[in-house]
């Protein structure tokens, strides 16, 4: 297996709901005018609490500093696992599950926090640039590690990065067990020919920016049975969309790509209630539940991997979200509850 360190330097930001109006212009430019904005990596995820925007430094320039914009101070690098054509794996499971054991668990043990971003096309594992030495050191046994520089991949050896290598001080910490929330929405993961983006522009803008406008028959997102969740990403020219079936109905059916089985997914949200995370960066000593805390992804991916269940995983500024197949949700729920009772993972 190969691990690619991609040539993107990413920032993780959050825009609070009522500050969105200040950012609609740059966001629309980043989504629809990809030739104008030289941003190659863009992801926007709406949760009930806020909008999480992950984008490269080119794109980051478009966002004006504002009190509504929270920026995580680190530069993040995306990692990508390439199966290298060894399609011999018998596992039908896909997504995070596949790399849970080989990437996520070892990094959790090294106390490296990861930010997961699954798309229709692939899974990105974002790590902090300062953790890169640890990451390489940890993963080089399992992977051939290549770093992309100017479009060419060159092999990375751990001695190249030893200078910056430092163990993350604390030994495996006491895991904070976060509560889980399993909303009732059904989600689908879809893609789109980037050339047809203009065709769905109005719908997309409506769904992204006017989701809070009252719609007949639909309860606001406070309803704990369903949550508002929408993710759009445009990475290296590939579009990926995650939305619930309600939102999907608003799009023309023939333009969005999905699997021929039209599979649907259920969400497992880690952290039962909004933790008010947005306030935390002002207090660095306080550990953030998803970004600074390591092992959260591992907490959930490990049991799924053990049971060979596919999953998508999308981290946001405040929460982590795992998507599992609809038909597996019962067993997943059972399994995770079970798992939490046994502290060792």
């Amino acid at each position, binding site marked *: 297996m190969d691990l690619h360190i991609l040539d993107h330097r990413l920032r993780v930001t959050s825009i609070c709901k009522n500050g969105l109006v200040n950012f609609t212009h740059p966001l629309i430019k980043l989504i629809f005018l990809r030739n104008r904005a030289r941003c190659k990596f863009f992801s926007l995820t709406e949760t009930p609490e806020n909008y999480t925007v992950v984008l490269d430094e080119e794109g980051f320039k478009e966002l004006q500093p504002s009190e509504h914009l929270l920026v995580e101070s680190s530069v993040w690098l995306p990692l990508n696992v390439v199966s290298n054509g060894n399609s011999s794996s018998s596992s039908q499971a896909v997504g995070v599950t596949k790399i849970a054991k080989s990437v996520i668990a070892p990094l959790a043990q090294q106390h490296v926090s990861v930010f997961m971003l699954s*798309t229709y096309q692939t899974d990105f594992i974002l790590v902090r640039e300062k953790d890169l030495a640890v990451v390489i050191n940890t993963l080089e046994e399992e992977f051939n590690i290549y770093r992309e520089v100017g479009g060419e991949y060159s092999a990375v050896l751990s001695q190249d990065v030893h200078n910056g290598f430092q163990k993350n001080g604390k030994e495996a910490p006491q895991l904070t067990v976060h509560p889980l929330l399993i909303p009732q929405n059904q989600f689908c993961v879809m893609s789109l020919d980037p050339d047809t983006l203009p065709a769905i522009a109005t719908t997309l803008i409506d769904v992204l920016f006017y989701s809070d406008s009252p719609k007949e028959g639909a309860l606001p997102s406070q309803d704990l049975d369903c949550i508002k969740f929408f993710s759009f990403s445009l990475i290296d020219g590939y579009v990926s969309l995650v939305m619930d079936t309600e939102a999907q109905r608003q799009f023309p059916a023939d333009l969005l790509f999905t699997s*021929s089985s039209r599979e649907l997914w259920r969400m497992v949200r880690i952290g039962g209630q909004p933790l008010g995370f947005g306030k935390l960066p002002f207090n660095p000593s306080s550990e953030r539940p998803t970004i600074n805390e390591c092992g959260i992804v591992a907490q959930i991916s490990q049991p799924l991997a053990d049971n060979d269940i596919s999953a998508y995983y999308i981290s946001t500024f405040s929460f982590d979200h795992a998507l599992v197949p609809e038909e597996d949700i019962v067993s997943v729920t059972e399994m995770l509850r079970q798992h939490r009772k046994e502290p060792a993972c």
Partner: protein
Amino acid sequence: MSGSKPDILWSPHHADRYVICDSELGLYRIGPVGCSETKAGALPLSVETAATLLAINSDTPYMKCVAWYPKHEPECLLAVGQANGRVVLTSLGQSHNSKCKELMGKEFVPKHARQCNTLAWNPVDSNWLAAGLDKHRADFSVLIWDISSKFSPEASVAAEKIRLSSGDTDSGLVVTKPLYELGQNDACLSLCWLPRDQKLLLAGMHRNLAIFDLRNTSQKTFVNTKAIQGVTVDPHFPDRVASFFEGQVAIWDLRKFEKPVLTLTEQPKPLTKVAWCPTRMGLLATLTRDSNIIRLYDMQHTPTPIGDETEPTIIERSVQPSNSLIGSFAWHPTSQNRMVVVSAANRVMTDFTVFERISLAWSSTTSLMWACGRHLYECAEGVGGEGTVEKDIATKMRQRAQSRYGHDTVQVWKNHLLAGGDDPQLKSLWYTLFFMKQYTEDVEQKQQGSKQALVYSGIKNIVKSSSGTTENRRCWSGSDRQTDVPRFHSEERSLALRLCGWINRGPDINVEPFLRSLEGEGEWERAAAVALFNLDIRRAIQILNKGASAERGDLNLNVVAMALSGYTDEKSSLWREMCSSLRLQLKNPYLCVMFAFLTSEPGTYDGVLYESSVAVTDRVAFACMFLNDSQLPRYMEKLTSEMKEVGNLEGILLTGLTKDGVDLMESYVDRTGDVQTASFCMLKGSPGEVVKDPRVQCWIENYRNLLDAWRFWHKRAEFDIHRSKLDPSSKPLAQVFVSCNFCGKSISYSCSAMPHQGRGFSQYGVSGSPTKSKVTSCPGCRKPLPRCALCLMNMGTPVSNCPGTGHGTGKSDEKVDLTRENKLAQFNNWFTWCHNCRHGGHAGHILSWFRDHTECPVSACTCKCMQLDTTGNLVPSDSH
């Protein structure tokens, strides 16, 4: 697929059909303009061709790529890859083929929808269709579909999971189970099947090129690269592949797949298409976005595989099929270097043939050849068409060399006949040289060496030294009227007249023999003029009469004779007046100058002297008779510089073989390139310094090279002999010696002690009687000479039986007879040896051995002696 770029596909089997795909598929037939089939609604593609739209298919929206079924039947089956990853089989036009009907509308659906980037039919197993798709996190990007497979729900993943629209499943036309799935969690941007094996598939994946082997799908060969778009195999080299990325094309050799063997110069704009020419080896066409040119890379002379150290030669050029921006192009599958180009907008099509570069070569024998495409053209001089066009000087020189031109050293003037006898300048030149030689020989007999040097320095120098000129006024012969024409005499002037050929040796001026010879050659006008200049008007009239009555004579000569007979020296007579004006209408220059002479004042003969059609010899002779000592050198000077200017060989009469003569010859060679005449002519001047002039040496060397290039080796040898006779300094010194194995002394040198080292070998069994001069041991140390590898006799023993000629040398007891056979027989006795294995023997024996063998005659020696001699297999083209 609105707004996306159009593409063109040629029908694999109908050379006149192609499909354009943009938002729909259009089938066109191409034909000559004005052909009845193409008349109605035809779109002109070029001056000669037009296209007719045969069918349109707009059933398949969101087309991303199209591939044409490679087999004959069904002939117009197309696979269309769509934006959602589905591959649909469709067709254009009517087809009654049942198989086609069965396949039409069949869809191949991937598990996860994403764009289909490329399609490729397997050229051997045409049921296999490879599709390259965009990336999906959990799915494969290369799917190989079997178009003959049926939809079978039980074979696919859990049927109840498939939520296909009911219409699809009912028709049984949807296939969801590919034959092979490759490239998990990757994107595939381009595909092609490798001709090496029907189960090898080359794919341009995300950031790498991969070769999938369907015999073992868990294995793949891959190389990381950015150049992953548009992979295409060179139809003429199954191991050569091109791919591109942005503006750069990479050429790969599959046998050495680690890195591109070549990267072509980067273009400023991204490439959109790269295609090998199917009809021409190593020609790659590339197209960039928003461009109206197609750039061609000719790799015909690029070695395959390309070594690391050699710089490959790629000839790069651009063609512009039309003025509009090009959307796409496609090479015609069979028609040489032809392509159809479609514009980026409005579907404007152009039929275009790339003109092949021309390579051109001269042969050593004047014929010219050039190659253009698959045609080879030869341009040789017309064999039969003589007279119309003058032959090239190289042809002339070749013919002259064969007729031994220049080699007649006795009757020197005959050389102009050997040269063909049709060039007045050569005639004049060789006569001049003949007269000069004749004079020197005379002088030698008379023991008057003083003039000898002078005679070759030309009339210009001869008359300069003129002294003791006498002047006399003679009567017109046959008339007692006194003339007032002064005539000048001196020894030098007589010599000049001799060199001009007017008079023979002796003090008298008697032109009668010259007149007779002119009459003999039918040069009536010239003879009459010469007679007139010698003040014999009656003889002139007589000559003209004779000329008029001669066979095919010109009756007008009688009229001229009549006019001549009316001559009067009255200054103001009507005759004089009319003659001086009407003479200019006479076509023959000699008739013209006759009247000019008669009507001009004494001392002013410009009408004669500057009549350029009159031979230089005659004008010079005339000047020597009628110009005084001050006028004559001036005239000579002027004429000489005129001759030098134009490179007229007649001027050699004036310049002689002096530096002036070399100047004149230089402008002659510049004008004609005739180094042959220049070489032979200048060699005659051997007593002087002219031969050492670098220009002369250059001509001689060039002529020798020319003879060598024509493989006229014997001629060249003859020329060298000729040259060494005339210019002993050019004789090469002996370059090869045979030295004794024991004492190391040269056996030829030490024994003969002859000054002519070159003749040394003749001692060994050739000259004289074999018994007498047989030397089989070293004259220095008395040790035996080596043995001939074939006859096992010691060298020095004459060849007794020479298989080639059947001539024994034993017979020739007498003086060496230098006949051709004898010379050959002499050569048979020469020492010869291989420089590689050092075996050898009698030249005759060795020669006959290698006529039938390739290996050295010494047993156990495997040296291929004769093949080491690169020129050994060439045959001289002048062998007798």
